[in-house]
């Protein structure tokens, strides 16, 4: 099949950027979307042009590196699928596709479709962990975790940190991402001692990074390649509100690391 691509080209964060049209010819339906772009890039390189920059690594849908908008939808049309796992059999000859980077103030564009998502790391650094230094753990089976809680924690922990939730949100909110980590750790007995502090610190950090607030639109859940549920945001809000009303703790100072 042959496709027409309109791709956002932007040389650097300070460059203005523009859409450029490319033709992708003889696309094999078994190719992944990124493999289709690989072929387009090979041609561009041989012509002496700059290839289209996009972040990617594992190409198995788990590292969270890849992701861009395809016709306005983060990661494209397949439900629960990162763009590296989207295959060209979902398209047909003559389709016209518009590819744009994640757009959010907290995700500066590095080049073309490649954005910088270190803001998400800083949200984790603010409190997305259980403070247990190496060596100080009790026996694994000394901590009993009910299976249903463990399963729900795992559902939330499956987040790959790709940022599609932010890109899809009209407010560029990182609530689904932040809520997923707060839920994962807050559901487990090991996560209880820091539960309130964690919610306060992570929510504060997300705001400091310039992510917007959640207004329950639900676009994030719709595009999440790991199908993280909106419920994690409710859990985050509950932990945050409880902590705000009842706790003496304050958010830990944000780090710029």
């Amino acid at each position, binding site marked *: 099949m042959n496709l027409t691509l309109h791709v956002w080209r932007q040389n*650097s964060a300070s460059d203005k950027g523009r859409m450029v049209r490319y033709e992708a010819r003889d696309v*094999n339906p*078994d*190719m*992944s979307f990124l*493999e289709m772009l*690989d072929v387009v890039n*090979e041609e*561009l390189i*041989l012509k*002496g042009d*700059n*290839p289209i*920059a996009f*972040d990617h*690594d*594992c*190409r*198995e849908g788990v*590292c*969270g*590196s890849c992701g861009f908008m395809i016709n306005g939808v983060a990661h494209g049309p397949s439900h629960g699928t990162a763009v590296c*796992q989207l295959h060209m059999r979902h398209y047909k000859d003559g389709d016209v596709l518009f590819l744009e980077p994640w757009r959010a103030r907290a995700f500066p564009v*590095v080049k073309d479709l490649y954005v*910088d*998502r*270190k803001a*998400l*790391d800083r949200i*984790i650094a*603010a409190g*997305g962990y*259980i403070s*247990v*230094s*190496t*060596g100080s*753990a*009790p*026996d*694994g*089976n000394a*901590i*009993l975790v*009910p*299976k249903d809680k*463990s*399963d729900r*924690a*795992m559902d939330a*922990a*499956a987040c790959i*940190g790709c940022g599609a939730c932010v890109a899809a949100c009209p407010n560029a909110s990182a609530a689904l991402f932040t809520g997923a980590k707060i839920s*994962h750790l807050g559901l*487990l007995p*090991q*996560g209880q001692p820091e539960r309130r502090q964690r919610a306060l610190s992570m929510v504060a950090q997300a705001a400091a990074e310039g992510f917007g607030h959640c207004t329950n639109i639900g676009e994030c859940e719709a595009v999440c390649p790991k199908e993280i549920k909106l419920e994690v945001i409710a859990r985050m809000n509950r932990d945050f509100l409880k902590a705000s009303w009842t706790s003496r703790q304050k958010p*830990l100072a944000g*780090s710029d*690391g």
Partner: protein
Amino acid sequence: MQLDSKVPSGPIEQAWDRARFDMKLVNPANKRKYSVIVVGSGLAGASAAATLAELGYSVKCLCFQGSPRRAHSIAAQGGINAAKNYQNDGDSVYRLFYDTVKGGDFRSREANVYRLAHISTAIIDQCTAQGVPFAREYGGTLSNRSFGGAQVSRTFYARGQTGQQLLLGAYQALERQVHVGGVTMLANTEMLDLVVIDGRARGIVTRNLLTGTIESHVADAVVLATGGYGNVYYLSTNAKGSNCTAIWRAHKKGAAFANPCFTQIHPTCIPVSGDYQSKLTLMSESLRNDGRIWVPIKAGDKRPPDQIPESERDYYLERRYPSFGNLVPRDVASRNAKAVCDDGRGVGESGLGVYLDFADSIHRLGRQAIVERYGNLFEMYERITGEDPYKFPMRIYPAIHYTMGGLWVDYQLMSTIPGLFVIGEANFSDHGANRLGASALMQGLSDGYFVIPYTLGNYLANTKLEKLEATHGNFRASEAAVTAMTERLLAINGNRTVASFHRELGKIMWDYCGMSRTAAGLETAIQKIRRLKDEFWRNVKVAGGPEGLNQSLESAGRLADFFELAELMCIDARDRNESCGGHFREEFQTPEGEALRDDEHYSYVAAWEYAANGAAPVLNREPLEFRYVHPSQRSYK
């Protein structure tokens, strides 16, 4: 070159305790004065960086990805072994040690393996406490499953995303240290050279992948945790960015490279579908617990699987290895798959595939049980192939997955360059000629959480290091060399892309240095690699310039190193006139077609020393002694 493994004397059960007691400690108040660079942020790197910072060292950690959470450990699916014996099925530290030495086909260092088995239980405790959501039983205890090469159930898992969850645990510990200032994290940063001063590793030179800036970093010790080199084959289950550059450039500065030809071919990957293919996807080996592997008995039988009656199917692993069945070690399963496909009995369009069939298990356990165990893997398979594995058997074929070889390290995990430590897949130490399933995660975390924090302290406490600045001549020289290489790559401006060279190199390696090898084939491969390398340096076309994000330049630099490593792999494979584990030389096999070791002549670690200016690498041998697990012909029958 002198290879001193520094294995403690005396009974193996107490070796690690004794070694730790003999170590010199660094005064807690002085730790912050020591700087350590950790290159790589996968399981080994992240756990090491976090733990060293918890102890008080000043740590700098770097990764080429945009975030440490994206390191390729994230993609490990199946699980992590530990000798907990929670299932009361006869497991013990000694049994895990025994299985690992045997599974490695008697080419690993016993003392290291024993330590790994010994530490395995503490890893599960640590990860559980961090909140890793391991699978649970209804009573709330930890659940286990079986894995290839073992007859006990000792594998802990978090659905099909064990690597992801363990890495996120280590990543979160790392970010906690970033927050308190113990670790300076440099993402999007690639190490391009190791700087050695007065015979000791004293820092590295890096390229900032977003800006193109070349920078020097001084340290008191350097830890490489940069993973394996499977991408030398182009198509592998590794991430696209996984590369050998850090370990190869350290090798060129004097670190011996051990057993480079020991590579692992994973039996259960999704078969190749076309030329454009950029990588291969693994289906966790845990699938072999409930899936049955078969091919048609008749060669060239192209009927769809549901029309091939039971009597015309060959469940060849169950037939040949009745006691281990579908759970034989990876090398055995892979070679058998190749053999049936070479017989013309392979399935799928290319004929390079075998069936992995869940019909019996779905019938016996119900669909829901299979969904719970493997749901995400089945989805992944369907997404990639467009076929529903609940209805049709999966098609699988072996693919390059892991490299047991790596930089040589002693018992302290220090390379032949003092002050340069190597951990995780990047070193050679624990898996011999074949790694058992669910042991990579165990080794990465063992090295990072529980070994390096002690051994690195011991090195620092015993070593007097001069204060240095990045203006030192050796740093300047490395910066100049790195810059010159970048300029040279950009100046060629030829007619072929980096990927086209890489694909061709991969094909040479897969054909001649893959699942089976011959002396003549390896000789051919060496000639072909040299010619291709020459052409690369004359005819590659790298897009863009030295500044800013340039993915074409990144891959060109990595490929330049892969060429050199590929040649060394072939030299090593040609030199080892025996078959062992993943290294199968056709000339050396039993009448039944199993790997035939030659313990009399090859019971050693081959540690290769780099020779400059195209001279032949120098082989150093570390003899292997087996005092506990006596070498025998591995039998899984």
